């Protein structure tokens, strides 16, 4: 066992150029392996060896002059990618989708209520200060308390206290057990920064910030003391905000940038023909929804909700709105990229007879209003029109109300004035996180107001039970049932999971598998990719 770990370490060192081939051979032969075996091990490590060096320029579809370096108000994809370049977190979702320790070396809990995080030792911030438990506590406190303006405040309300046990250990005491807590601290808002300086862009990451011009660009240089093995291969990085999709695609084709996020699906077939362009597609946890509010008439009626759920042509939406870059949803928010996706649940299809049957049973008559705006997601208004069209085949009349983009999230979504609207969820890495973001009875973002029905009460107790459960099989059972409850009784129609589609020049290499949790390799392309 020990030798296996040792060999893996040596392979990593070889891949990163820390040691040369001769050194690798000698050290691994010493473990007692035969020469041919060691030779093939060396080949394997070197074949995957990413090259160091080069200037990586990336065009990002977001970026605003109001952006800051404070991760607490990180709100768009530019600040997300930017934050991951210079900052690390306690844990990280790896490119294969597992949770791995990052600034924490390990974490453990016996009851899922008291979590002990052992910190990696000797990690330095860019200002030379060594990271200790004091910094971790300050970074967490930044998102807690009444006066915090952090978008991650809601995630940490269950944290009762954070205490240090020496310099290299932090203990979290939670109000109630949460088996997924280590996932929570991987959230992009909860970046670890030096105590007393949460906003100047000093972190422990693979790149050191040289300049940051909000809404324009960021310039970074490789951190020579980066603690992580096998990551951060570029010498220099420029992140450029290019909001216009045509400008972004032209820049990639002309070689002005090396990678970009959010390819315009309408022109992707033309774009793909460019010999310099490589398209990366992955279906993750992000999905489009049409939440119906149960506390607004007529959506409180189970049969009416069922009627609408059956009157949607899901594959047509995938083909027309996502141009095939996505997957159909089954009216619950758990994707195939999640651990406990319920694959036993039969896929709900368009069925005019069932829809008409439920509609008749609900006793409702007249138009049903559906509010949509492209602020919810690109193509939301068109999707609403398609839904109205297919529903009319079942004799259900839907009136699409086009809402202004401006202020959509405060005035239309999650608002009792509108019973049914279009919405977007980036998805969450764990079932519990997704459910407690939008479906449990204690979240402010319960956009379906699904609280009073018998199924929802059952759902809430199941979620609580699963949260405290450490056994894998038991959790799977519980989450399967949760998905089935949301799918049948819940207020949300989830017809689509959208793929992340990004593009890069052929000179760029990536790991075999790229992460599905965010666009551009989990938004960590800067530290994960390299020039071939």
């Amino acid at each position, binding site marked *: 066992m020990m030798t296996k770990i040792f060999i893996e370490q040596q392979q990593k060192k070889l891949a990163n150029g820390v040691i040369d081939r001769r050194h690798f051979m000698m050290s691994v032969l010493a473990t007692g392996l035969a020469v041919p075996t060691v030779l093939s091990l060396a080949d394997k490590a070197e074949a995957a060896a990413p090259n160091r060096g080069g200037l990586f320029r990336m065009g990002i579809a977001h970026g605003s*002059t109001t952006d800051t370096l404070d991760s607490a108000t990180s709100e768009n994809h530019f600040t997300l990618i930017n934050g991951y370049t210079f900052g690390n977190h306690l844990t990280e979702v790896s490119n294969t989708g597992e949770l791995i320790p990052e600034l924490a070396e390990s974490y453990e809990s016996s009851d899922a209520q008291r979590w002990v995080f052992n910190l990696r030792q000797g990690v330095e911030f860019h200002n030379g200060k060594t990271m200790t438990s004091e910094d971790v506590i300050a970074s967490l406190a930044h998102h807690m308390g009444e006066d915090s*303006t952090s978008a991650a405040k809601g995630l940490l309300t269950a944290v009762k206290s954070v205490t240090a046990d020496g310099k290299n250990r932090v203990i979290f005491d939670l109000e109630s057990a949460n088996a997924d807590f280590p996932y929570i601290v991987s959230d992009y808002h909860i970046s670890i920064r030096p105590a007393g300086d949460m906003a100047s862009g000093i972190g422990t990451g693979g790149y050191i910030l040289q300049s940051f011009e909000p809404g*324009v660009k960021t310039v970074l240089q490789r951190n020579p003391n980066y603690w992580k093995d096998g990551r951060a291969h570029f010498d220099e990085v420029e992140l450029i905000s290019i*909001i216009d999709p045509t*400008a972004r695609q032209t820049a990639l*084709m002309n070689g*002005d940038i090396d990678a970009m996020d959010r390819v315009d699906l309408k022109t992707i077939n033309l774009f793909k023909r460019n010999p310099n362009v490589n398209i990366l597609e992955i279906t993750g946890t992000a999905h489009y929804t049409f939440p119906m509010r149960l506390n607004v008439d007529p959506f409180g009626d189970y049969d009416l909700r069922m009627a609408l759920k059956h009157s949607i042509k899901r594959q047509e939406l995938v083909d027309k709105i996502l141009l095939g870059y996505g997957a159909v949803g089954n009216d619950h928010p758990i994707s195939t990229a999640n651990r406990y996706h319920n694959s036993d649940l039969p896929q709900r299809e368009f069925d005019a007879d069932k829809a008409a049957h439920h509609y008749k049973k609900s006793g409702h008559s007249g138009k049903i209003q559906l509010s949509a705006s492209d602020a919810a997601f690109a193509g939301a208004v068109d999707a609403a029109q398609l839904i109205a069209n297919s529903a009319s085949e079942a004799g259900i009349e839907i009136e699409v109300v086009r809402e202004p983009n401006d202020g959509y*999230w405060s005035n239309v979504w999650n608002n009792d004035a509108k019973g049914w609207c279009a919405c977007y969820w980036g998805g969450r890495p764990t079932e519990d996180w997704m459910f407690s973001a939008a479906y449990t009875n204690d979240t402010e973002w319960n956009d379906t107001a699904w609280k009073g029905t018998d199924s929802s009460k059952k759902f809430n107790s199941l979620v609580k039970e699963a949260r405290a459960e450490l056994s894998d099989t038991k959790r799977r059972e519980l989450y399967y049932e949760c998905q089935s409850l949301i799918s049948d009784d819940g207020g949300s129609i989830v017809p689509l999971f959208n793929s992340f589609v990004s593009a890069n020049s052929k000179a760029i290499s990536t790991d075999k598998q790229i992460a599905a949790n965010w666009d551009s390799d989990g938004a960590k392309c800067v530290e994960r990719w390299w020039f071939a």
Partner: protein
Amino acid sequence: MGVATLFAVSIIIFSSMELLPGDFGQAILGQAATEDTVAAFRRELGLDQPAIVRYGQWLTAVLQGDLGTSFSGRNASGVDRSREVVDLVAPRLRNTLFLASMAALFAIPLSLVLGISTALYRNSVYDRSISMTTLTAISFPEFFVAYILILFLSSLSSVFPSLANVDADTQFGERVYRVALPALTLTLVIVAHMMRMTRAAIINLLASPYIQMARLSGASPTEVILKHALPNAWAPIATVIAFNLAYLVVGVVVVEVVFVYPGIGQLMVDAVARRDIPVVQGCALIFAMTYILLNLIADIIGIVTNPRLLYPK
């Protein structure tokens, strides 16, 4: 008069920002907004005070020459990292003025020459083809002109870069090279207006009796236009040039977005979208001042080139 206009503009802008739904906290947090966090933002930014009080505070500060600080980045973890509106606006304004002057440098001489020459050879094939070309260019939306230029001068032949992302350290020569395409786009967009106005103003004068007199006295057509018609046409020409210059400063957001040029237009659009009121107010004041100043200059040119206006009747 100018000051009164500025005051009126600031009131209009402030009240229309108030009419917009949502505030900075909600805009920044978007879907992730909770009542708690938004309330914390409001306390931090003083948005919990009535609008009239906030306007009063802003006005007093501006009268003392302080445009305030942006809402963004205030008080994060006890350290105020927000930026002064002046620091935000100044480099952007410099970029915008640079692009505007590059475009004006091409466009103004070009449209004057074209305007005068088409007036000289009016109704000829030359006149018609110039009119047709410039009117075609102005009829297309700006982004379309921009994409066409990118296609031919950047994608197919790579003469100029398609990204004009300059920063404070970019050298002058490099800067000129990078803004070539946006400047060219703007030139194509504004030439028609100025050129047609010049042509019309001159042709209008050609019917006057004093031009007839000049002709009868044996002056050549070129001489008639340059010596006799043009001096009287300066006032309307100056007005239309001022108008187009003002447009170059305040209205080129689309071109900025297509070429990724960090100008002031994008700054104001972002600030409005995020409800960053101090920045919006700062930009609005600058825009209003640009209009007022340029119109003032046009009026002065009109008066100076027309000696009759210098003496009271």
